């Protein structure tokens, strides 16, 4: 049967070598992928191209059907953006967020996934408990955290005299760490799931060999588990970085649009404020393009670092 299958495959390939050169070995894939590709081009690629075009022009909104001149201004919008201290502050805020959120996410997700992968009573209940925040709308959870971290809230009640003054979400030093912890808490369930899937591919024989060689729990975790899930770690780092760089909902809702002295303003929040509220879509698009380039660079760098030993 195997030989018959291979013979059929070779006959099909000999039939149209020119077609295979132009369309690939299996041109049916083009038909399967076409609906998604068309959808991407219409809903995504065209607006992206338009957004980049807007960033290089003096663009403003006009009434429908009215023809106005939107001249090409080169890099003027980018110079304005890079010279704006609020924009620079927003990028610094995102870096602060990523420095807290990404390592906390990776470490917490891996440790919890490792613990949940073992024999634990009520394992399904525990997995669901850690996953519930991920499937809940951010808007609903933000309201709860606003109450929890308010000046007279539950957290300050627990801390008593140790509570910071001013309180968490109006304190320029604490607001971004609180947002980082919120996002970590909210998304941890998804990353635990990723690591749980990756842990199934780590051979159990490696743990047995390590135990035979006298390795304890921590050594087995460091020398077997961590290298074994490195591809998942790369994915978690990249996804957490992308999510953090595109932060909008939490600064917008938790800190009412930017926090004390712009301490929680994110680039995406600034894009929304400048593009929609202040009617400067050209400046907003320039911020967006710079953000995308920054995220791409960080993603490539983090991938190189996490896979450096391969």
């Amino acid at each position, binding site marked *: 049967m195997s030989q018959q*299958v291979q013979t059929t495959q070779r006959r099909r390939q000999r039939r149209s070598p020119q077609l295979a050169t132009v369309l690939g070995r*299996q041109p049916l894939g083009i038909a*399967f*992928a076409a609906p998604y590709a068309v*959808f991407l081009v219409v809903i995504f690629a065209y607006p992206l191209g338009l957004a980049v075009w807007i960033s290089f022009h003096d663009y403003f909104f006009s009434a429908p059907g009215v023809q106005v001149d939107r001249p090409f201004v080169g890099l003027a919008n980018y110079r304005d953006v890079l010279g704006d201290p609020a924009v620079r502050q927003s990028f610094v805020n995102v870096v602060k967020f990523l420095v807290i959120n990404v390592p906390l996410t990776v470490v917490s997700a891996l440790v919890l996934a490792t613990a949940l992968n*073992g024999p634990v009573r009520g394992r399904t209940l525990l997995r669901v408990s850690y996953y519930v925040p991920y499937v*809940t709308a951010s808007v*609903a959870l933000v309201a*709860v955290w606003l109450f929890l971290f308010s000046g*007279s809230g539950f957290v300050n009640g627990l801390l008593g005299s140790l509570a910071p003054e001013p309180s968490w979400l109006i304190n320029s030093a604490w607001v971004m760490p609180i947002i980082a912890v919120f996002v970590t808490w909210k998304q941890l369930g998804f990353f635990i799931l990723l690591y749980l899937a990756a842990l199934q591919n780590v051979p159990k024989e490696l743990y047995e060999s390590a135990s035979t060689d006298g390795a304890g729990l921590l050594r087995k975790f460091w020398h077997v588990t961590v290298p074994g899930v490195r591809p998942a770690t790369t994915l978690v780092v990249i996804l957490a970085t992308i999510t953090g760089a595109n932060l909008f909902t939490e600064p917008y809702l938790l800190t009412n649009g930017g926090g004390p002295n712009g301490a929680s303003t994110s680039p995406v929040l600034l894009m929304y404020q400048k593009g929609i509220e202040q009617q400067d879509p050209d400046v907003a698009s320039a911020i967006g393009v710079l953000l995308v380039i920054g995220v791409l660079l960080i993603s490539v760098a983090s991938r190189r670092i996490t896979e450096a030993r391969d």
Partner: protein
Amino acid sequence: MTRAVARTAALYLGALAFLFPFYYMIVGSLQSEPDTSLRGAFPTSGLTLGNYSDINSRVDLLRSLTNSGIFTGGVILGTIVFGVLAGYALARLHFRGRGTLFALMLLVQIIPFQLLIIPIYVMIVRTYGLADTYLGMIARSPSTPRLCSSSASSSSLCPRSSSPQRGWTARVSCASCGRWRCHSCGQRW
């Protein structure tokens, strides 16, 4: 034994910490007056279901739930159709443009929706005239292309779990590619 007990206890404490905001949300929804203090988290009196009965007077609950249902159904349908088709093609078939499509799919995850919000608004509302319609809402939703990409990424794992041998055997037996794919990949959904 001690280690296992400690691990279980730590996991349950963590789960309690994770679920505490939800408990706080439920307690808050049952309070007639909001009490954010420490004592308010564990009320012994003043609980009421009045907030739930007041929902419909503040928000048209039935209409908003219907809208959410239609929107969610549309996004899921589009995601499954587009995502599974593209995912299978990317995972199992070799065709011109495969690498470009995969890169574009990953790019969807990176681009913030707020960068596209103005061009999409102009396109959906002014060019296509789909303002205030379900189709316009589903098409321009930030979740639609991302869910399609995620679905395509995850469904690209689906055909790998079935052996190529099964695929070629089915095709030799004159099953159409679509029928084999529906039976093989679709069953996993």
